[in-house]
């Protein structure tokens, strides 16, 4: 069991579909090395991937952070805009503002934020148009 909190940060570039997904892959490796249960790793990996892709697809750039404690995995994403005008709408399954180019890559299902919320034990999102979006989630270790 972890005695101290482990913290990591991952800068995410906008529109870089070659590197996209790498941060989520690194986060998954960190959790595997820490010996977390497979169910927790899977939930965090999905959250990390969706959060990362949201920054890549919808923002002008931002970052992901991971804090690992003995009781839970905490993740946060922040971006520098453009912000979400209607968060309730963005949380509806199937709603997407992804461009046709992005949809051609397999994105734009409108399941990103809903997938994050579904896999999180705590979910908080705040956004201001013209400023950016902050997302905070945690996953309790030992709760599948």
């Amino acid at each position: 069991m972890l005695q101290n909190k482990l913290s990591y940060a991952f800068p995410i570039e906008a529109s870089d579909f070659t590197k996209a997904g790498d941060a989520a892959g690194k986060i998954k490796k960190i959790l595997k090395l820490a010996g977390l249960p497979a169910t927790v790793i899977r939930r965090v990996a999905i959250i990390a991937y969706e959060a990362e892709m949201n920054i890549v697809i919808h923002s002008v750039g931002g970052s992901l952070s991971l804090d690992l404690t003995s009781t839970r995995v905490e993740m946060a994403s922040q971006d520098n805009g453009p912000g979400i005008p209607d968060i309730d709408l963005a949380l509806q399954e199937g709603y997407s503002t992804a461009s046709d180019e992005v949809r051609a890559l397999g994105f734009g299902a409108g399941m990103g934020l809903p997938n994050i919320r579904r896999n999180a034990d705590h979910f908080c999102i705040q956004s201001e148009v013209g400023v950016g979006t902050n997302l905070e989630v945690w996953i309790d270790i030992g709760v599948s």
Partner: protein
Amino acid sequence: MKLQEICELLQADVLVDYDSDAEAFTACGSDLISDILRFIKVETVLLTGLTTLQMIKAAQLLDVKAIIFVRGKRPAKEVEEIAKKNDLPVLCTKLPLFEACGCLSRHGLKGCSEYAVQEDEHVAE
């Protein structure tokens, strides 16, 4: 179902090989990454017509047993190399997605649905 049997049923080419005893218990077919992240189960094979690097990364993230490209699609060499480097088996079948999924379903491989539809539910009276 053994990957070997899946390969034979779909008459698939093997781009990245699998262990002879590798097995999957469910299958998921989609070209939308977030739908896959939503519905896919563990111990599964992923069928898709999307041969992008991102599909490989999503498959790795979910620890899928194999990715099966349908409709005769083949990934770019660099995408195939990344799958190989990460020990992700890659198969290619000429069957379209619906037919490939239907074939595996008929032979007993389960899907990723969370509810069951009665077989006669949609039959007109």
